């Protein structure tokens, strides 16, 4: 399993509107908060819902020199089953370039992998984790927009790259912004901002609930002797 490595090259494939790029940014900021290093490269074609989107994140305990797309990933995150079933990825098949002992996380508990895909992935000693991230987002946060949080929580929970506090700070920064948080408690805020802030605080809390839930789920999985595919009930 691709955990406890010094360096992870992560490829995130999803569809427009799923928050692929947003979660890449949050992943990067979480690493920064943990005193580690990250670099990210977002790539997208036409900016529309359901169109393929990819983002690449390099995460390491050491400075990163390398730039550009991740051609040979050791972690692949699939935000939508159509990436696999409809070929909505920038490379076909979606696992092109996958390294040995890699980790794949798919947002779906349906058997999306064809027998020939499974054969290749078995040979590469990959581990595939499948769970209904969107269902989980709906159940816990009441919105499918938190799908990316569930996916991000799962990858960070499995790799233990950063702590939940590191992620919370990164999510807070993304949704509230640094300056916003800094002045959040002061009386100088007018009521409009206060209202907005309250709404955003709620959003943040819901997102964190999803992430905490995936951390719990990840903590109960042992992938060391697991078969190719591990499905997790939400």
């Amino acid at each position, binding site marked *: 399993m691709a955990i406890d490595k010094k360096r992870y090259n992560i490829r995130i494939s999803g569809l427009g509107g799923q928050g692929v790029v947003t979660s890449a940014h949050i992943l990067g900021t979480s690493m920064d908060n943990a005193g580690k290093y990250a670099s990210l490269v977002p790539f997208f074609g036409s900016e529309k819902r359901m169109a393929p989107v990819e983002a690449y994140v390099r995460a390491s305990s*050491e400075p990163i020199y390398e730039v550009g797309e991740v051609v040979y990933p050791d972690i692949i995150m699939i935000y939508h089953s159509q990436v696999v079933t409809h070929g909505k990825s920038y490379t076909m098949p979606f696992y092109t370039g996958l390294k040995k002992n890699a980790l794949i996380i798919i947002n779906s508990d349906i058997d999306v992998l064809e027998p020939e895909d499974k054969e290749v992935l078995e040979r590469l000693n990959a581990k595939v984790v499948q769970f209904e991230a969107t269902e989980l987002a709906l159940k816990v946060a009441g919105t499918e927009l938190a799908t990316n949080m569930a996916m991000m929580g799962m990858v960070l929970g499995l790799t233990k790259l950063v702590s939940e506090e590191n992620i919370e700070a990164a999510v807070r920064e993304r949704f509230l912004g640094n300056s916003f948080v800094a002045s959040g408690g002061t009386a100088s805020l007018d009521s409009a901002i206060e209202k907005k802030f309250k709404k955003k605080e709620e959003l943040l809390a819901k997102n964190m609930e999803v992430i905490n839930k995936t951390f719990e789920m990840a903590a109960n999985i042992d992938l060391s002797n697991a078969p190719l595919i591990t499905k997790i009930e939400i």
Partner: protein
Amino acid sequence: MSLNKKLVDMDYLLNEAPREQHFITGAQAMAEAVKRASVDMAIAYPITPQSEVMHLVGDIYAQGHIKEYYRAEEELGTMSAIAGAARGGVRMFTATSGPGLLRGLEAIVSWPGHRIPCVLGVLTRVVNAPLSIQPDNIEMAYLMHSGMIMLHAENQQDTFDYTLAAFAITEKVDVYIPVSVSTEGFFVTHAKGYVDMMSEELAFDVIDPYKAPVPAMDNEVPPARIQRDAPVQKSNFMSYLIHSVWQQEIWDSNRRAMKYVYQYLGGPIEVIHPDADVFIVASGCAAAQGREANRYAEEEGLSVGFIKVKCIRPWPKDEISAALKNAKAVIVPEHNIIGWLSKEIQASIPNGGIVVEGPRVYGGMTLPVELIMEQIYIALGMDSEKLQA
């Protein structure tokens, strides 16, 4: 507009002035260097990915760091105007990318012969069909025979430092030819990296026309003929003689710039693990990928050397040949199909056959470190497992 900057020499500015770390894009890094270089005037025509740099230079013009700035009609006009203004004795900056560079090339290749000191930013981009905006760096091959000095930046920090150094080198009395600072578009220009910068209250000494080896032209009463001598008006044999004198002098100037590359950039090459058998030699962004491969190799317990080439012209033939004296294999990763760097290296060592021509990526694709690793395994006689799933 006077910004009350403290003017200092380039040695102090580059090597002594206290610095603070910033997290900025390569385009910002180049503009920040221009801000501290007491540039009199900038002229440019926009093209992706250069436009980011010249937009930011426009901002610093509006803030009063540059006296004059305009958008020319296109690149041939830009580069011709740069020559005219530089002849008038002012410090000039411009930048371009791929097709824009080739469009301006007719004027650019005349700069060294006319002794035009200026700094040209080259933010690389595909020039061949099928055209794209991605950072293939084949355009640099066209500059290699122009006579100008060429620096190639690996990252945002290099882009800042090399651009500043370029302003000092170009005006040296024993150099006085243009300097280009190249770096890869997008990978460096549009990506953020850590850059240590000195205060913007500090700036490089203003241009001193009395130190110029050729007199400045009075642009208000320009001479009827722009060329300082007009060889074709004399005999053919005078023309051949003058051409040879000018061009030999340019390439001598180019070689004389090497001591300033040592002074400001700490030398034309950087070497890690000089005793290794297998070397990676790279410049620009490919050097970042090579540096990463070097670290991967180290983690796997493999002995691999790394040489970063900071300046392409003057070409550090002696330095490279000495560094590769005991090498058994030389891997040269590049962002272009012709392999201009590997050809230079092959020509610099007596046993050019040890140079592995690649890995290369085309059309501005990323250069995966894994491709460099594959060549390392082959060079070391190890089993190279198939990369592709």
